[in-house]
């Protein structure tokens, strides 16, 4: 079994009286593509926000590799190698595509900005748009730009929050191929609602429900899990 790269132990966060994340234990193995699924309000976004440091946990512990990062602020975690791409596209609309990606590249202290930007844009096939103002890009390109910024951080763990939301069918295929190609260099944790994408891409799946881990396993195991079927997949055939 591959080494664990990111581990959460007893992670909890409540908003008012609502336990959004309630004692979650979770381990992400190096090099895998791991999907986080669950019904709306299951605490998925809260959970990855805790991992990325955007919000602070009430209890629990987060380790990156051997290091306890629970107390680190978000920007420091990014520097340690946890990249987060936003659910709602979050780019710099009034800056050029180059500047958007360059901000990610220079965050890693790279010497050669141009090369770094070109490489990241090449990965998502957007080299020709380098001088365009980001806000004028199509929605699909903005999503890809967001991904390029995540890649340019050269993360050890890449967290994707609903990356295919709002993409057309053709764009989704391209996206799936792109993420599959990342396996050799990074570990991917993604929240995803599109079950086809999940079953296609993920090596392992974690199902959250009411802030707790309902099940964990390979796509086949999850599909076969009666508790998941009851809570989430309904008849067990919702993926189709």
């Amino acid at each position, binding site marked *: 079994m591959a080494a664990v790269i990111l581990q959460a132990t007893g992670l909890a966060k409540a908003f008012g009286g609502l336990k959004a994340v309630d004692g979650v234990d979770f381990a992400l193995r190096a090099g895998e593509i791991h999907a986080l699924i669950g019904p709306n309000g299951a605490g998925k976004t809260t959970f990855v926000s805790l991992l990325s440091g955007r919000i602070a946990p009430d209890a629990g512990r987060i380790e990156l590799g051997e290091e306890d990062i629970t107390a680190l602020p978000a920007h420091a975690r990014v520097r340690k190698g946890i990249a987060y791409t936003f659910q709602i596209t979050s780019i*710099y609309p009034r800056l050029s595509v180059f500047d958007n990606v360059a901000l990610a590249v220079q965050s890693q202290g790279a010497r050669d900005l141009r090369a770094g930007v070109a490489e990241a844009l090449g990965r998502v096939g957007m080299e020709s748009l380098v001088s365009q103002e980001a806000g004028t890009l199509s929605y699909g390109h903005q999503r890809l730009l967001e991904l390029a910024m995540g890649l340019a951080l050269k993360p050890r763990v890449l967290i994707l929050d609903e990356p295919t939301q709002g993409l057309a069918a053709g764009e989704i295929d391209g996206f799936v191929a792109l993420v599959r190609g990342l396996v050799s260099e990074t570990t991917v944790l993604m929240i995803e609602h599109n079950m086809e994408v999940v079953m296609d891409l993920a090596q392992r799946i974690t199902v959250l429900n009411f802030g707790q881990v309902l099940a964990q396993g390979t796509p086949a195991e999850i599909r076969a899990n009666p508790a998941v079927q009851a809570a989430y997949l309904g008849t067990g055939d919702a993926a189709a």
Partner: protein
Amino acid sequence: MKAWLFHLVALAGLAVLAAVLPAYHANNLARVLVLAVYATGYNLAFGYTGMLSLGHALFFGAGMFGAALPVTLWGWGGVPVLALGMLAGGVVAGAVGLLALRTKGVSFMIVTLMFAQAGYLTLIWFNAVTGGDQGLVLPGAARRVLGIDLTQDAPRLWLALGIYAVALLLAVALVRSRFGRIMLAMRENEERSRMLGYNPYAVKLKVLVVSGLYAGLAGAAYGLFFGYAGAGFATVQYSILPMLYSLLGGAGTALGPLIGAAAMFWLIDFVSSLTNAYLMLVGVALIVLVLFAPRGILGFVRERWLPWLP
């Protein structure tokens, strides 16, 4: 390259003006240039980094009295007091920033306003030392910098131009650097920037200190160049003026603050010959700018013709 050329040509144009302007306007140009140094620093925080401060008068005042007090208390003068004033502006900006940058937007505006107000009242409170409302007149002996006699119009103007030139070119270099890109990133989308590994608090604090150094130097120069330091320069009005200059000339453009300062200065100069209510102009300009021209003069030029303008 184009960007550097643009600003060097602008500076050359200023040098020509400095050589040919009649005495009255040459003297005004010296004032405008010092105020432009102040506004250029303000614009680094406001136009480029998105920090709308209403407290910069405190940094300007700190610079002015940081230079004036050593003159009146210990008989210092020249470059050391200019440097002290600059340092005072930076230190005070850092201290204010440490607290105020825990807030954003409207709260940040009010917090900086309150700190500046407290600073102004402190100057009044210690009127035995600061001269309070009357202020301090600085003796001619202290007003020599590098052998330049600042009581004379022409040398004063050239030194003002020299300081502005350095201030402008450093600002251009800063905003074109990698750090300049991070400044823009903070202005455009702070949360995104955090998730690219940048600490917004630290970035903004650095910019505020730089901005405070500009304000401090400008305050010190204003005091030394024109021989007077007064608490009036630490009032709210002197926080609003650099904002107005930046808005008018173009927030987030390097040369904009100078253009705004010059336009406002000569407009006010003209109107004050007609009425004593010349500050009406400031009010009208603020409203017209936020309503109809939030990008300002150079912002408009950049949008239309010169997209590469820093």
